[in-house]
């Protein structure tokens, strides 16, 4: 070990690695064979591969908020101070209690979950606890990730995935053709295949050639990104890249740990290569059983010889290179088991056995000790400490298929290769033209012969599923969980397909393949979130008066994206106390409330009335100039979805207001109606939601306050006048949402503070949404959302008398559907508590506790001045049930109240308080 030695720990044990080694290479270098425990049976597992397809060697790396579970040891380059921990074992990796599960493996057969689902629910609840504890990967970190994730968008002419010779040449050709190129490589080094199998290209050593080509690409304006995985490919060559700026768990130098790219490419070239397939034999998952090319990678690239007495088992020629590399490194190749008939491999110089397949690996958690093989009918045992297996090669077609590409069956290679692509995507290199192979992979032995290592699916499990009738690949996948682990079955799917095809008496391409979905390799959640975390997870909308409210330090409410004051507590007041005080100020004197967030639209033009009488279910044309009215809007199915007010400012100019929360929906709806249903009308509409600020002034003294502020007589209820307040032009609209005489003042939002301050100086008590709720519930005013929930008609909401009898409004033609005649449809009602106590909001209305829900409480409040719990809600046939006694019952909150059904208008039902 030289000065460049890197210190790291595995399960607390201090170990040393050489620069450039993956954690897997470093563990093998330190003689560590046992790396993890399997998902379901807790079987001891080592290292199978040398790439991102690794199903076994999953570890947790990092500490605290940087903890990253389920990191593949083969896809993690060791750094100074790396802390790696094995997973899914207790109390320790070596003596894992859960591995006793192997003894009861028969109790957890394929489809176990499905079977328990069909059993009694209580049994599942029992199993669930047991299963969740026993079967699991690394736990997610509980602390917040201290690092940031960058996001970048890019455009290029050609994006090349994979930096092997085929990818590098494709990228080089493209830059020389004047194209803007991005080349991505998930490994830390370019052309990893040339590090595994060093050879000259264009008269240069492979690795040096790769570096030179990359430099050439960069010099011509191209971008070469290493440690960058193309995780997903979508329509029109939209590709997502996840770039590791540091290794998992490592402290980033500048705070950014990963960069997530959204790239739109003119063309995508996939040079993704192939991955090797395991062979299926009993105990093929034991530590010390590795893929042949992986063994060669460890020997040639990382300088680690994973075994000294090796049996190579293969179905093709490639594994002979592994045998040679092992021999060159000083290891003994005990035997080469070649599934092909003689004379395959006979001139290789190794002890080759033809028509030979592995049957059972012997050994335990510390590695294999022998391999029992079937040599064309006779069994023989070879003592060994490493088994290198090669079951042929599977092209990496994931990205091609994600983007809707078809697959073709390559009979010579016994593999699926990319076929027609839906977009401008082409595949080059080995992924398009894999080496010839004789079979997909012999799947002889069934028991303990794993096809999906990560999800613990054996050949026997596949057979069981097949016997139980799960025969299409899609059913088989879901029943056995085959290919559903984080590796998406990269190594095991083909062997499983082969098994099922044989069972069904069909060919592998007839059996088909399940769909590959993004991501190709796991992507950190943080990378997807980017900087949109915490308070930045969604936009914040601040009304014009935000700063003024903030100075009063209110209790805020997030109303959609809006920040709105919920109450302005004085001293040590709670929310409920402050809300009640504010509401009482409105009932007894005068209050003011910022209602700027209301949706507002100006509708103008000679056909404005015609347009509005389609959108609104009420009449509009009868309004005189200077008058306004309450209105509501239905969808085409005649169910009411929003409400508001409409004001005739001039003969052909109207202001329409509607709910804050429904503002963007209403903007789209108005535009839809205008463009699709009323294209012939002469009308123009403009959303002025943020252009005008609005303040409600409400209470018995509000008229006097407005008269003083405007220097003129206050308009009568539902009239609008032009006025000036603090010198600012304003519309003063006499409208009420509280039950009191009230006004809404609308004016240019740029002057919001001046107008607010002038009104507040007249002794108005600011009130927030909490007081507004109490006031409007007592009065029986509905809000869009809980009350107007898009499921009731105007009649059911109690608005039937206001509906425009002339018709013509949207929804009129569907109002007489038979379903609306059902007397048990829900209707809007009021409720009052009989026995004291409060009516739980959201509770269901039942005749007796445990009875069927006949409705629910949409808003709960109290009589603002007298006290006593009241509420509003939806109740089946409610209009005819006033006086009936029910329970408002919330089983989740274990609350109930005895209630009496009433009119929703609990306060001043005749509207006398609107008059001066």
């Amino acid at each position, binding site marked *: 070990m030289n000065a460049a030695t890197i210190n790291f720990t595995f399960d607390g044990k201090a170990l040393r690695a050489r620069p450039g080694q993956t954690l897997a290479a470093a563990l093998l270098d330190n003689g560590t064979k046992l790396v993890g425990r399997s998902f379901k049976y807790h079987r001891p597992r080592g290292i199978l591969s040398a790439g991102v397809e690794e199903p076994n060697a999953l570890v947790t790396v990092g500490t605290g908020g940087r903890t990253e579970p389920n990191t593949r040891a083969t896809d993690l380059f060791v750094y100074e101070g790396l802390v790696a921990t094995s997973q899914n074992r207790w109390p320790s990796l070596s003596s894992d209690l859960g591995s006793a599960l192997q003894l009861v493996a028969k109790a957890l057969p394929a489809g176990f979950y499905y079977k328990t689902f069909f059993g009694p629910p209580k049994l599942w609840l029992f199993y669930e606890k047991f299963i969740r504890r026993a079967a699991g990967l690394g736990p997610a970190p509980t602390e917040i990730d201290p690092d940031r994730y960058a996001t970048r968008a890019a455009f290029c002419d050609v994006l090349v995935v994979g930096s092997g010779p085929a990818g590098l040449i494709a990228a080089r050709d493209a830059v020389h053709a004047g194209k803007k190129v991005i080349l991505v490589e998930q490994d830390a080094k370019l052309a990893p295949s040339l590090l595994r199998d060093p050879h000259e290209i264009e008269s240069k050593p492979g690795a040096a050639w790769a570096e030179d080509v990359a430099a050439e690409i960069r010099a011509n304006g191209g971008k070469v990104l290493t440690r960058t995985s193309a995780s997903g490919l*979508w*329509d*029109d060559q*939209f590709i997502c890249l996840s770039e590791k700026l540091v290794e998992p768990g490592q402290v980033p130098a500048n705070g950014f740990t990963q960069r997530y790219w959204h790239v*739109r490419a003119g063309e995508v070239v996939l040079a993704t290569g192939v991955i090797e397939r395991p062979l299926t034999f009993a105990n093929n998952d034991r530590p010390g059983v590795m893929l042949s090319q992986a063994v060669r990678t460890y020997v040639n690239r990382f300088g680690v010889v994973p075994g000294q007495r090796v049996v190579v088992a293969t179905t093709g020629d490639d594994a002979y290179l592994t045998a040679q590399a092992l021999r060159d490194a000083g290891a003994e190749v005990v035997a080469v088991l070649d599934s092909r008939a003689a004379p395959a491999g006979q001139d290789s110089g190794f002890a080759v056995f033809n028509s030979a397949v592995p049957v059972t690996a012997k050994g335990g958690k510390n590695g294999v000790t022998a391999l029992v093989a079937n040599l064309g009918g006779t069994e023989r045992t070879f003592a060994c400490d490493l088994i290198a297996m090669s079951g042929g090669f599977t092209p990496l077609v994931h990205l091609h298929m994600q983007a*809707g590409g078809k697959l073709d069956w390559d009979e010579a290679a016994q593999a699926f290769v990319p076929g027609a692509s*839906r977009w401008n995507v082409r595949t080059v290199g080995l992924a398009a033209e894999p080496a010839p192979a004789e079979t997909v992979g012999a799947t002889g032995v069934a028991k303990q012969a794993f096809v999906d290592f990560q999800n613990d699916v054996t050949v026997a499990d596949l057979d069981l599923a097949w016997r139980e009738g799960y025969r299409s690949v899609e059913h088989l996948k879901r029943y056995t969980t085959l290919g559903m682990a984080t590796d998406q079955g990269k190594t095991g799917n083909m062997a499983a397909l082969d098994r099922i095809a044989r069972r069904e008496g069909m060919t592998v391409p007839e059996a088909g393949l399940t769909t590959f979905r993004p991501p190709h390799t796991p992507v950190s959640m943080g990378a997807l979130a980017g900087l949109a975390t915490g308070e930045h997870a969604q936009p914040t909308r601040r009304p014009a008066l935000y700063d003024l409210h903030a100075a009063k330090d209110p209790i805020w409410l997030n109303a959609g994206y809006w920040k709105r004051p919920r109450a302005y507590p004085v001293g040590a007041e709670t929310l409920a106390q402050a809300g009640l005080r504010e509401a009482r100020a409105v009932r007894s004197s005068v209050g003011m409330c910022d209602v700027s967030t209301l949706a507002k639209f100006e509708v103008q033009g000679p056909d404005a009335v015609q347009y509005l009488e*389609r959108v609104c279910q009420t009449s509009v044309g009868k309004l005189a100039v200077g008058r306004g009215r309450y209105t509501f809007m239905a969808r*085409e*199915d005649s169910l009411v979805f929003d409400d508001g007010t409409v004001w005739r400012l001039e003969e052909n100019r109207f202001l329409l207001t509607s709910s804050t929360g429904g503002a963007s929906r209403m903007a*789209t709806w108005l*535009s*839809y109606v*205008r*463009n*699709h*249903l*009323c*294209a012939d009308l002469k009308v123009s509409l403009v959303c002025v939601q943020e252009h005008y600020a609005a303040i409600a002034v409400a209470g018995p003294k509000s008229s006097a306050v407005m008269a003083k502020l405007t220097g003129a007589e206050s308009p009568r209820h539902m009239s609008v006048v032009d006025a000036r307040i603090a010198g600012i032009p304003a519309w003063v609209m006499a409208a009420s949402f509280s039950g009191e005489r009230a006004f809404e003042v609308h004016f240019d939002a740029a002057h919001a503070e001046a107008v607010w301050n002038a009104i507040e100086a007249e002794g108005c008590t600011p009130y927030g949404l909490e007081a507004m709720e109490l006031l409007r519930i007592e009065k029986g005013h509905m809000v869009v959302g809980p009350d107007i929930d898009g499921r009731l008609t105007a009649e059911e909401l109690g608005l039937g008398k206001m509906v425009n009898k002339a018709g*013509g409004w*949207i929804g009129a*033609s*569907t109002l*007489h*559907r038979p379903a609306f005649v059902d007397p048990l449809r829900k209707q809007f009602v009021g409720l009052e508590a009989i026995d004291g106590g409060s009516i739980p909001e959201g509770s269901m209305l039942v005749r007796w506790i445990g009875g069927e829900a006949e409705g629910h409480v949409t808003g709960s409040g109290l009589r603002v001045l007298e006290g006593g719990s009241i509420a509003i809600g939806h109740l089946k046939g409610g209009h005819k049930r006033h006086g009936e006694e029910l329970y408002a019952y919330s089983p989740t909150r274990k609350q109930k109240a005895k209630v009496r059904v009433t009119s929703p208008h609990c306060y001043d039902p005749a509207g006398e308080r609107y008059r001066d």
Partner: protein
Amino acid sequence: MKLIPCPHCGNRAQAEFVYERTADSVVPLDAEPDAAVAALFARANPRGVEEEIWRHTYGCGSWMLIRRDRVSHAIEWVKPLGPEALP
């Protein structure tokens, strides 16, 4: 993510657009009750080509009719819609 050729802005990412409804779900104001109910609740929903109404909501705001294969995602054509559509 698809590119959609907005009649006004040219090719833009699908994220800028909102799918509103199928073209055959538009209920004309003078529709007979049966026709209105059929348009709302008994549409064809074919596996394949369908005409849809989209809006470039997070772009220019214009409405358009898109004829699109819902299996292959291929867009046959895009037409501007309504009086607010730009030429």
